[in-house]
Each structure stands twice: as structure tokens, then as C-alpha cells.
């Protein structure tokens, strides 16, 4: 692993530790919910990470579709980054669902409800799980193109998730950021939001960069193997041996 990656990891762990401390021990508890509201700081960081990496997956999928027949090197990089970003996006989405469910059980008294926000998020998670399963189990040269097309259409659910609490009446709380007048957090709580947003985003970038490199290496090795197989001509080989 390169030096800058180690430095990035050290900085990330520092920011995450500060975020943990500020969220649990520094900012005041919510006046209505008490300490359970502190779940929000990890919950919203997970959704931010999910939004970031699913958007990156969309961008990479579009690049792959645009250049796949013309620039193989760029296409392979875009496809590798698409896999890495989809995987970490699925992880963030899953954590968002788990932390939301834990908060819901403590505050609402139920683990789950089929309202627009929760349902559209579950559907989004399932779409990207299906994307990863397609990549894992489908074979043949068209697999990557199919996956990229699926990613483009799958992404359509992301703005739906974001807007669901604005468009429909949901049990899920109204938007905290950019919501109606009077919504939002008390300014004393913002440090916990910013530290955790920064820390978990940095963590996602670190893990996605590792995953990208490994996926790119695997695809490159697979391509080199295929090219080597094409170069091997049995007749020529026998003639060379005969001489």
C-alpha cells in the first residue's frame, strides 16, 4: 500500500475518532428524544456516503457505456470504479437501514413501516444488490454493458428516495437539511454532523480506492490472459519446436 494511502487512513481514523467523541460526549442530547437521537449522526453520514458513491457509480457507468468500444483502458478503469463505488454504496445503504430501524424501534415503537422513504430506500438497496449479483454470476462479454445499463436505470430511485419525504406524507421525519422553515438542528449539534460526515466520507474513499485497485488488477490480469491465449497459434508453435 502506498504512503499516501497510509496517511489518508491515519487522518481518516483521527477524524472518525473525533466524530465519535463529539457525537456521544460533546453535543447536547435532543430535547425531545434524548440520547437515542445521537444515532442520527451515523445515520445521516451513511446516507451521504450512499448518495456520493451511487452517484459515482452512475458517472462511471455512463463513461463505460460511452467509451467501451473505443478506449479499452479508460473503460476498464471506469468499470472497476463502478464496482468499487456500488459495493461501498450498498454497505452505506445497509447501515442506513439498520441504524434507522434501531432508532425507529426506540422512538416509534416499531422496527419498520412501509412508508415512502423506507420502502424506496429498501428498493434502492435491492437494485444495487441485484447489480452486484449480476456482475458476480453473469458471464460473457456483455455482462459489463448490462451492469452499466442497470446502474443507470437503478440510479433513478436515488432522487426518489431523497424527495420522498418532501413529496409524500411519511412516518419518517421531515428533512433536517433544506426542509421547511423552522426545521433543522440546533447549531450546537452541527459539529457532530460535520465530523462524522467528513470521517465516514473519508473512510468510504479509502476503502473504495483499495477495492478499485484490486478490481482493476483482476480485470487487467484477465485481459492479459485472454490476449496471451489469442497470441498462441498451435501450428506456429509446432513448427518452431520442429526447427
Amino acid at each position, binding site marked *: 500500500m502506498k504512503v499516501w494511502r497510509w496517511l489518508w487512513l491515519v487522518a481518516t481514523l483521527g477524524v472518525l475518532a473525533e466524530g*465519535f467523541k463529539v457525537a*456521544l460526549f460533546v453535543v447536547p442530547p435532543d430535547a425531545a*428524544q*434524548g*440520547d*437515542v437521537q*445521537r*444515532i442520527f449522526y*451515523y*445515520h445521516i453520514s*451513511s446516507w451521504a456516503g450512499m448518495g456520493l458513491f451511487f452517484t459515482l457509480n452512475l458517472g462511471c457507468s455512463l463513461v463505460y457505456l460511452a467509451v467501451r468500444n473505443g478506449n479499452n483502458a479508460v473503460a476498464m478503469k471506469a468499470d472497476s470504479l463502478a464496482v468499487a463505488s456500488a*459495493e*461501498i454504496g450498498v*454497505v452505506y445503504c*445497509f*447501515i442506513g437501514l*439498520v*441504524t434507522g430501524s*434501531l*432508532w425507529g*424501534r*426506540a*422512538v416509534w415503537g416499531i422496527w419498520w413501516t412501509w412508508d415512502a422513504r423506507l420502502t424506496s430506500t429498501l428498493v434502492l438497496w435491492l437494485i444495487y444488490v441485484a447489480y452486484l449479483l449480476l456482475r458476480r454470476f453473469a458471464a460473457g462479454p456483455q455482462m459489463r454493458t448490462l451492469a452499466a445499463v442497470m446502474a443507470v436505470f437503478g440510479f433513478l430511485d436515488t432522487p426518489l428516495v431523497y424527495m420522498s419525504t418532501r413529496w409524500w406524507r411519511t412516518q419518517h421525519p421531515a428533512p433536517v437539511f433544506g426542509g421547511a422553515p423552522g426545521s433543522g438542528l440546533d447549531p450546537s449539534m452541527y459539529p457532530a454532523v460535520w465530523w462524522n460526515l467528513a470521517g465516514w466520507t473519508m*473512510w468510504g474513499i479509502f*476503502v473504495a480506492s*483499495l*477495492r478499485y*485497485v*484490486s*478490481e482493476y*488488477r*483482476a480485470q*487487467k*490480469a484477465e485481459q492479459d490472459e485472454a490476449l496471451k491465449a489469442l497470441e498462441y497459434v498451435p501450428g506456429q508453435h509446432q513448427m518452431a519446436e520442429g526447427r
Partner: protein
Amino acid sequence: MGDMGHRHLVIAYAATIVIHLVYLGYVAVKWRAAKTLAK
């Protein structure tokens, strides 16, 4: 709130960290496999 709220707060933070570490383990396995493949 009360006990359940505190319990769920601890579980939420622990689950977040554990899920990320499990995925990091998967990424490490892939990293090693790709490194071997590249050699």
C-alpha cells in the same frame, strides 16, 4: 427513551463499525487475490 434507547444507540454505533470492518476484510481478501494474480 430510557434503557432501550441507550441500548439501541450502542448497537447502532457498534453495528456501523462492525459492518464497515467486515467489508474492509472482504476488500483485503480481494486485494491480496489481485496482487497474487498480478505477479
